[in-house]
Each structure stands twice: as structure tokens, then as C-alpha cells.
């Protein structure tokens, strides 16, 4: 058994990872550029991997380190590359992304959602007995809600989709805290599912872009007679 002091250190570092995870989620709601959104998503995935490594050291399970490695391989390397290759450059060079809500309002809403998530997870914490559940469950839950908010307020295809991916990341963030002995096959299959999802959405976005000349999917609700070039 490891020294309890080391466990406390690891636990504190995991809590720090959780805090930064929450911060990056707030950034994902409020950053204006598409490139910035992608970078924040990479940071989010790196933090998820860091938390997985720390938890694998705390619980002594090699499963979680594999989860971390798979996470880095797919979400830090493959998905950003795929998004780069599939999407036109115009998406990345545009300065500002349209939003339904203005940014301070969106941020404050995200904050409210985080508080709600903390309140909701209070009774849920009795389910597990791990020491990491107090950090990972509420932050993962708030990530689910904030990712949903991101998907709701963004009018641009890529940030909208990154909000959905952030939801998936947060679900894993909560999952590795609640069930560290999760079968490996679940994580691996979901990781590849997500990869394929990115590919499909990327191709779809490209088709939308070629057809109507923009990726602002928020404007698709209005009817058009003739595609503007």
C-alpha cells in the first residue's frame, strides 16, 4: 500500500485537475474563435487524461491509464487533426462566432448550471465510496450541463459539435470517478465511436459549407429560395 501522504497529494492534484476542467468548460462557452474552441477542447481532453492517470495511481488499476492513453490518442491527436483536414480553412480564419446569447449571459448561465450540478450530485455521492467521487462526479455533471448549453447557444457547426464532445468528455470524467473498474472495452469502443462521429459530422459540415457557403448552422432555420454564393 502506498504512503497515505502520497494519496493525499494525488487526490489534491486530481481536485486541481477537476478545477481546471471546470474552468476550461467555461472557456468553451465563451471563446469567440473556432480555433480557440478546438484548443480548449484539446486542453479538456488532456485534463481528462491527467485525471485518469492520477486515479489509476490512487486506485492501483491499470485500466484507467489505458483509458488515459486512448483518450490522448483519439481526442488530443486524432479528432483535432480530423477537424483540421475535413473542414475548410475559412471556418478557422473567421474572427467571431455567432452566439444566441451574448457572452456574459452565457457565462452566468453556465455558472448557474455548475451550481445546480453541485447541488444535484450531493445526494448522488452516497452511491460510490471512492475518495475521488467528490471531485469527479459534480464536475463531470456540470460538464454535461455546460456542454449541452454550449451546443444550445452556438450557431456555428464546429463549436456546437465541440459542445457535444465536451459532454462526452465530462461523462467520462464523472465515470472514471464513480466506477474506476469500468470494463476497458466500453471506453475503447466509445472512443472509436466518437472518432467516427467526428468524421461524419465533419463531412456533413463540409457539405453544408459547399451548399450554402457558410457553416453557421443557426441560420439554416430560415427558408431560402436560392443558395447565395
Amino acid at each position, binding site marked *: 500500500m502506498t504512503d497515505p501522504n502520497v494519496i*493525499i497529494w494525488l487526490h*489534491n*492534484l486530481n*481536485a486541481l485537475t477537476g*478545477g481546471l476542467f*471546470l474552468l476550461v468548460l*467555461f472557456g468553451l462557452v*465563451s471563446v469567440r474563435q473556432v480555433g480557440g474552441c478546438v484548443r480548449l477542447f484539446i486542453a479538456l481532453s488532456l485534463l481528462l487524461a491527467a485525471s485518469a492517470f492520477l486515479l489509476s495511481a490512487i486506485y492501483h488499476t491499470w485500466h484507467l491509464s489505458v483509458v488515459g492513453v486512448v483518450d490522448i490518442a483519439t481526442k488530443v491527436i486524432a479528432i483535432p487533426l480530423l477537424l483540421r483536414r475535413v473542414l475548410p480553412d475559412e471556418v478557422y480564419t473567421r474572427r467571431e462566432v455567432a452566439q444566441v446569447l451574448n*457572452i456574459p449571459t452565457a457565462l452566468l448561465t453556465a*455558472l448557474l448550471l455548475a451550481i445546480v450540478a453541485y447541488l444535484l450530485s450531493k445526494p448522488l455521492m452516497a452511491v460510490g465510496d471512492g475518495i475521488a467521487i467528490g471531485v469527479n462526479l459534480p464536475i463531470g455533471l456540470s460538464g454535461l450541463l455546460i456542454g449541452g448549453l454550449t451546443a444550445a447557444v452556438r450557431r456555428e457547426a464546429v463549436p456546437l459539435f465541440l459542445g457535444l464532445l465536451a459532454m462526452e468528455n465530462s461523462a467520462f470524467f464523472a465515470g472514471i470517478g464513480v466506477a474506476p473498474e469500468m470494463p476497458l472495452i466500453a471506453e475503447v469502443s466509445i472512443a472509436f465511436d466518437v472518432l467516427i462521429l467526428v468524421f461524419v459530422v465533419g463531412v456533413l459540415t463540409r457539405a453544408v459549407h459547399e451548399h450554402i457557403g457558410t457553416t453557421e448552422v443557426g441560420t439554416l432555420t430560415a427558408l431560402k429560395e436560392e443558395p447565395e454564393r
Partner: protein
Amino acid sequence: MFHRVFFNVIQVVTTMLFAPLVSGVVSRLKEIVQSKRGPSIFQPYRDIWKQFHKDEVIPEQSSWIFRFTPYLVFVTPIFVTLLIPVLTDYPLFFAFMGDMLGGGFVLSLGGFFAALAAVDTGNPYGPVGASRTRMVGFLAEPVFMVVFFTVSFTAGSTIPYIVQQHWVTPLANFFEPSHVLLMLAFLMLILAEGGRIPVDNPAGHFELAMIDESKSLEYSGCSFALVKWGGHMKMFVLLCIFLNVLVTPWGLAHEQAFGAVLLAIPFLLFKILCFVVVLVVIESSLSKLRLFRIAEFLGAAFVTSVAAMISRLFAS
């Protein structure tokens, strides 16, 4: 007893002496980053000295507020210096006269009178700058409050001397998420309150874009020197609170000996120098925000501080 009063005086003298130096180092480093030579780091002292020897011009329409404000702007940072740990890690004679909230009030009193004086002159640019400063101020206020309440909730006290002990005993406390998030929020607060670059350009001389500088446009001579010196000291005090209470509470004098207190001065200056390098990197790599984007910047600071609070409140 006598010792503690004496050390308190040393703290005040340190603040008064070294505050212009910090501003000089910041501007010199910024020039070096831009491949220029820049003014000497002692330039702020020379400016203050020169201004003290000049005659003063006072607008005809102005009232007593205009003449009274420079003294207030000069004195309020000194008052705060009495309350916070600048050189020692044990409470000094005046430490229990007021807590961090009191210090915040005293500092904002100076800012309030500076804004009044800017309106008092009748110069059109003064009120513009004053109203902008107030806008930044009231957006920064909730951040300050949440940071303050989280810190005092965590440490169980509102006296800065007691708060600083909490984060480093044991050292693992330093990496608490609430602590790191609080540091980030307070850093953004310093950038906003000190008129640094993402919020305001301290080197800008274009009246329409000024925020902080335009309040002292009408001052000249002795009053201008006092306002400038007070501004340097306010920045120094904010840095002391940030570094000595929140970030790096090491290197402060632990014994009640004269030598130990004097030895703390180079440590403090070294810490400030490290922070100044970070500040210069921030200032050189970001551009100034548009006026209405400041709300977003401080909104982000607010969200950071509330995230720190909830991760502390709900920690199991």
C-alpha cells in the same frame, strides 16, 4: 510593542521607496521586449522629483475636492500597507485595525475621490475616464467580494496575516483547486484594477481611449507627483496582497529581529520581479480589449472566482 510599531514603519517606508522602482522595471522590460532600449528603471523617481519642483496650475472652476484628492490618493495605499503583510509573517501593531475588506474600502476611497476630482475639473476627458474607471470598478467589485469571502471562509479569518498561513501548511493545500482558481481570478482583478493591458493601456496617450490616465490629466506640479506616486504605491500594495497572501507566502521575516525584517526586503523585491516578468509577458502578448469587452473579461474573472467558491463549499 515598540518593535511592532517600528517594523510597521519600515513596511511603509519600503512601499514608498520601492513602488516607483516596480513601475520603472515594468516599463523598461516592456520596451526591451519590443526591441527598444527604453528609459532607465529609475525614471519614475526622476519624474516625481521633477514634478515636485514645478509650479502648479489649478482650474478656476474646481473646488476643494480637486485640491484635496492628491493627498488622499497618496495616503490611502500607505494606510493599507499598515494592514497587510509586506515584510513580516506575524501581525504587526496596526494589523488588527482593519481586515482585508477594510483595506479594500480604503483603497477604493482613493479611487472614488480620484473619479470625483476628474469630474470636478470641467475637462471633458476627465469625466469620460472617471466613468470608465467606475465601470471597470463596479464590474470588478463582485469578483473582489467572492475572492474575499472564499479566502476568509477557507482560512477562517479575514486578517491577511492569518490567511497566508493556511495555503502552505501543509504544502499540499497549495494545490487545492479553490486556491489555484482564486489566484487566477485575483490576477485578472489586478490587471483590471491596475489598468494593465487587456483592460487599459498604461502607456497610451490618446485621450479618447484612456481609462485610468485621464483622471490625472489636469494635475500638475506637486499634486501630479503625489497622484503618480500614489498610483505606483497602489500597484505595489496590490502586488503585495497577491504575492504575500495568496501566491507565495515564503521569504517573509519570521523572527522579531531588525535584520530579519531587512532581509525580507530583497526577497519581496525578487518575488515582485518574478511577477513583473509574468505581467510583461501578459501585456506584450495580448492586445487591449474594446471597452465593452471588458465586461466579458471581468465576467470570466467572476466565473473563475465563483468556481473557486463552489469547489471549496461543496468539497467533501
